[in-house]
C-alpha cells in the first residue's frame, strides 16, 4: 500500500526533523563544542518521580493529621528536589567538549575515542558520563578550571575511517532525581586497519639483493632484543617470560641477517582471492615483516610505498591498506 507507506515515511521524516530541531542535531562539528544552556536538556528520572510520589504522600498525611510542620518539611524537601534540578543542569552546562586522541585499531577490535571535557567554571563537576550506545558509559570528574579525558568505545567492524557518531553526555548529580544530558557530534575519526588474516600466508620469498647474503634470510633466527608490544604483533613473538616478570607485554625482535628487498604485493596473492581478503593478508604480512625487523615495500593497485622499515613505515603501509579504494571520505 504505497499511500500508507508514503504517509509513514513522511511522518518519520517529520519526527526526525522535530527531534533535530529540539535537540539541535546538525551533524558533526569541528573544534570545541560548548554545552551552552540551549544544548543541555533535563528530565526527571524514575527515582525523581518516585521522590515526587513520596512528597505527595507526605502532603496527604500532613493534610489528614493537620501537621503544619509536615507541610513545611514536605515543601522544603520538594523545593530541594526542584533546586537539585538546577544543580544537575549546572553540572553539565558550559562544559567544553573537544576531540582527543584516537589510536588506529584493527577491524574487529574496539576503538577508543578520547573525548576531552574542559571546565572553565569555578565549580567541580562530579560524575559526568559520556556514552555512545546508552549501555556503557564512562563516568569522569572534571575539576574546577581543569580538564579530563573520557573514553567512548566503538567496535570497529570495517576497515577505513570510523566515526564515533553522536555521543551523549549526561549527569545525575547531585541527588539523582534528574538527568541532564547533551549531545556532542564531534568531528573525529579512528583509522581502522584491515583485520590481519589469521592464519596468514607465509611471507613471500625474499628477492635477493646483489648477492649479499643467502636467500633464506627470514630474519627469524637471531634474537636481537625486546621492544614493547604493538597491536598486531604475532603472539608467537611475545616474550611470555618477560611478561611474567614485569607485567608488560614485550615482543621479541629478531634481526634478519640479510638486508634484502621484500615487496609485499597485491599481485602475489592468489588471483581467486577477493579484495578484502587480499588486504587482510597484506596487513598480516606487514605486521610480520615489521615484527621481524625487515625492510619492506608495499605494492597496491594504484599506489606504491617504497621499501623502508620502522614504526612509521608500518603505520603508513597499514594506513594505505585501510584506505585502499574506500569511498567513505574523512570529511
Amino acid at each position, binding site marked *: 500500500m504505497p499511500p500508507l507507506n508514503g504517509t509513514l515515511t513522511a511522518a518519520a521524516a517529520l519526527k526526525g526533523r522535530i527531534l533535530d530541531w529540539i535537540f539541535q542535531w546538525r551533524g558533526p562539528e569541528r573544534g570545541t563544542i560548548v554545552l551552552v544552556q540551549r544544548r543541555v536538556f533535563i528530565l526527571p528520572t524514575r527515582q525523581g518521580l518516585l521522590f515526587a510520589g513520596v512528597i505527595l504522600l507526605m502532603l496527604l498525611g500532613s493534610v489528614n493529621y493537620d501537621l503544619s510542620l509536615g507541610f513545611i518539611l514536605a515543601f522544603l524537601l520538594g523545593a530541594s528536589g526542584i533546586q537539585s534540578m538546577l544543580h544537575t543542569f549546572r553540572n553539565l552546562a558550559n562544559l567544553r567538549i573537544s576531540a582527543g586522541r584516537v589510536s588506529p585499531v584493527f577491524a574487529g577490535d574496539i576503538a577508543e575515542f578520547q573525548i576531552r571535557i574542559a571546565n572553565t567554571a569555578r565549580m567541580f563537576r562530579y560524575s559526568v558520563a559520556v556514552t555512545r550506545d546508552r549501555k556503557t558509559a564512562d563516568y569522569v570528574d572534571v575539576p574546577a578550571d581543569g580538564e579530563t579525558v573520557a573514553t567512548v568505545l566503538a567496535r570497529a567492524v570495517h576497515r577505513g575511517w570510523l566515526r564515533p557518531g553522536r555521543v551523549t553526555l549526561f549527569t545525575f548529580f547531585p*541527588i539523582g532525581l534528574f538527568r541532564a544530558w547533551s549531545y556532542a557530534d564531534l568531528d573525529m575519526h579512528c583509522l581502522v586497519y584491515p583485520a590481519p588474516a589469521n592464519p596468514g600466508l607465509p611471507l613471500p620469498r625474499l628477492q635477493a639483493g646483489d648477492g649479499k647474503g643467502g636467500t633464506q634470510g627470514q630474519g627469524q633466527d637471531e634474537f636481537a632484543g625486546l621492544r614493547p608490544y604493538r597491536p598486531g604483533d604475532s603472539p608467537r613473538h611475545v616474550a611470555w617470560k618477560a611478561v611474567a616478570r614485569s607485567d608488560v607485554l614485550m615482543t621479541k625482535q629478531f634481526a634478519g641477517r640479510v638486508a634484502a628487498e621484500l615487496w609485499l604485493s597485491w599481485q602475489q596473492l592468489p588471483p581467486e582471492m577477493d579484495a578484502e581478503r587480499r588486504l587482510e593478508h597484506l596487513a598480516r604480512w606487514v605486521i610480520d615483516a615489521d615484527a621481524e625487523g625487515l625492510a619492506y615495500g608495499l605494492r597496491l593497485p594504484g599506489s606504491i610505498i617504497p621499501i623502508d622499515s620502522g614504526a612509521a613505515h608500518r603505520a603508513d603501509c597499514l594506513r594505505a591498506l585501510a584506505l585502499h579504494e574506500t569511498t567513505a571520505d574523512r570529511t
Partner: protein
Amino acid sequence: MRDIHWLSATFLLAAAPHLLRMPLWISALVTVIAAIRVLQVRLRFALPRKWLLALIAVAAAGGILLQYRTLFGRDAGVSLLVIMLALKLLETHSRRDGMLLGFLGCFLLVTNFLHSQTIPTALFMLICAWLLLATLIGMQYTGIWPGWRQQLQRSGVLLVQAVPLMAVLFLLFPRVQGPLWGLPQDAYAGLSGLSDNMSPGSLNNLILSYDVAFRAEFKDGKTPDAKDLYWRGPVLWDYDGRTWTAPRLTQSNEDLPETGDLEYTVTLEPHNKRWLFALEFPGQRPPRAIATRDMQLLSFTPVRSRMRYDMTSAIGVAYGADEDRSVLARSLRLPATSNPRTGNFAAELRSRHREDRDLVTAVLNLFRTENFVYTLTPPLLGEHPVDEFLFETRRGFCEHYASAFTVLMRAAGIPARVVTGYQGGEINPVGGYILVRQADAHAWVEVWLENTGWVRVDPTAAVSPARVERGIASALPRSDPLPMFVRGDFAMLQRMRLTWDSITYSWNQWVLGYNPERQRLFLSQLGFSEASWQTISVVLLVFAGIAVLIGAGLALRDLRGVRADPAKRAYERFCRKLAQRGLPRGAAEGPRVFARRATQQRPDLAAAIEDITALYVGLRYAENSSDAETLRRFKQRIRVFKP
C-alpha cells in the same frame, strides 16, 4: 560501603524519637538490624536471605498485631514502617535501593510530627533532613569523593537555596481542612483537658500537668486581675452522691447578650472535646460553635488542632434572672439517700437565714473560719463524701469545696450548679499574653438568686484566697507535689521560661497555626480577599516562579568562570601573538613542548621564547609561584615580544 554507613546512621537518628517511645522489643530489633548491616559492611559476612527477611517481617507484623491489636493505627503503623525500613536496610545492595530507602526515610521524618511539633523537634528533624539529603548526595559520587564535609555542605546549600520556594509553597499552596479519611482511634491519644464529669480526685491529675491549656491575649493590654479570671468550661448539673456530670450537651443555640467590654483572643490547644473556654460571661459566639443555655461555648466538632478565636466578655455580672422553672428544678435535685448529715445541716442553716444571700455568706464564712485546709493530697472519702468532708476530714481541693458547697445549697433550696474550667493564669510580660496551664484547672459554683440570676461563688477562695489571687503554687503547702517550674523559685529560670514560652506562642501562632483560615486572611492582606481558586493558582504560580528564579540565580552563580591566574593570562597573550604568526599552540601541547616546536620553526625567536617559557614554568609550577618581581618581569617580556 560509605553509603550504607550514612544510611544506617541517618535512619537510626530519624527513627530515634520513635524508638524511645516504642515497646522495647521493637526498638531492640531495629537497632540490632542496623548494627548488623554496619558490621556486615566491615566484616563482609553473608546477609540474610530473602526468605529469612520475609519471615522476620511477618513475625514482626504478628508481634505488632499482638502489641497494638491492629496494624493500621497511628502507633502500629509507625512501628511497622520503622521495622520495614530496617529490614530494607538489610536488603539494600544497589544505588537504586539506597535511594528508595532515603526517600522512605523522608516519610519517616514526617511521622515524628504526629507526636510533637515543638521547636526542638522541628530543629531535630531539620538536621535529619540535612543528613538524609547528604546521604542521597553521597550515593551519586562515582569517582572522586570529596569527603563528608563537602557532602554536608552541598546538602546544606541545597536546603538553603530551597527556602524561598518552600516559603511560597507553605504560604500559598491551597490548604484543605483535614482529615481526608478516617483517623485511627489512637490519633488523639494523650491530649489532656477537662472532662464532662467530676468526682473527688479527678482533677488532681490535671493539676499535676504542666501542659498548656490555652493562651489569651487581651486587646490594648487591658488584662484583668488574676482573681477575676474565671475561664468557664463544662457546667455540671447532675449529682449521683459522688460524681457530678454534665447533661447531654444541648444543641439549642442561644443568642448571647452581646455585652462585654473585655476583648481578647484565645489560642486553644487541642483537647479532643468540644468546649471553648471564655471568661464569664461570653458576649459572642466563635465561628463554627454554638452557645448553650447555661452559657457554655461548644465547637461543632471536637477541638483536635490548635484553634484561635476572638472573644468578648463581661466579667463580674449575673445573668438569667428570668430562668426557666424546669431548669431551676433541675438545679435543686439531689439523690435522696446520700449525705444525710449535710441535709440536716442545710435545714438548720435555712432556719437561721431566711434570705438566700445571707445563707451563701454564712457558708462561705464557715469555710473561712473553721479549720478547712486547701491541699492537693486530701484523704480518701467513703460512701457519703460530702458528709465526711464537711464534718470529718476538712482537707480538700477545689472540687471538694465546690461539690460540698453545691450540695449544701441544693439541700437548702437554693438552685446551684458546679462549673469547671480554669482560674487565673500566668502573665507573660515578654509576649504580653496570659498563659493558662492544665495546672490552673479549677471548679467553682454558680447559684441562682431571685431577681439577680446566676452568680458565681468560689468556696475555694474563701478557704484559700491565695489560690485565686496568686495562683496554685502559692496556695499549696510546700510539701505538696507540683510540676517543676510552676512554683517559680528561681528568678533567672523563671525569666528564661517565660521567654521560651513566648517564643513557643509565636511559633504556634505563625507556624503551627497556619491553617486554611489563616491562609485566607493572609491572601486578603495581599489584596486577594474572597479570591477564586483560579486567582490563587495564578498568585501561587507567579510567586513560585519568582522563588525558582531566585534559586536559579543562586545555583547558576557558580557557573561563572575562574579568574585565571595572571601568569596564565599573560602566557595566553604570548600564545596569541605566536598564533597570529601562524604558530598556534596545540590543545594538548605543554609549554615546553610548544616552545621546542616554536623555536624549530622560528629560530630567530629562540632566545625570547625560551626565556618566556622558563619564566612561565617557574611561575606556574615551581614552589615560589607568588613571586611578584618575577611576574612583573615575565609580563614585561611578553609585552615587548614581537614575533
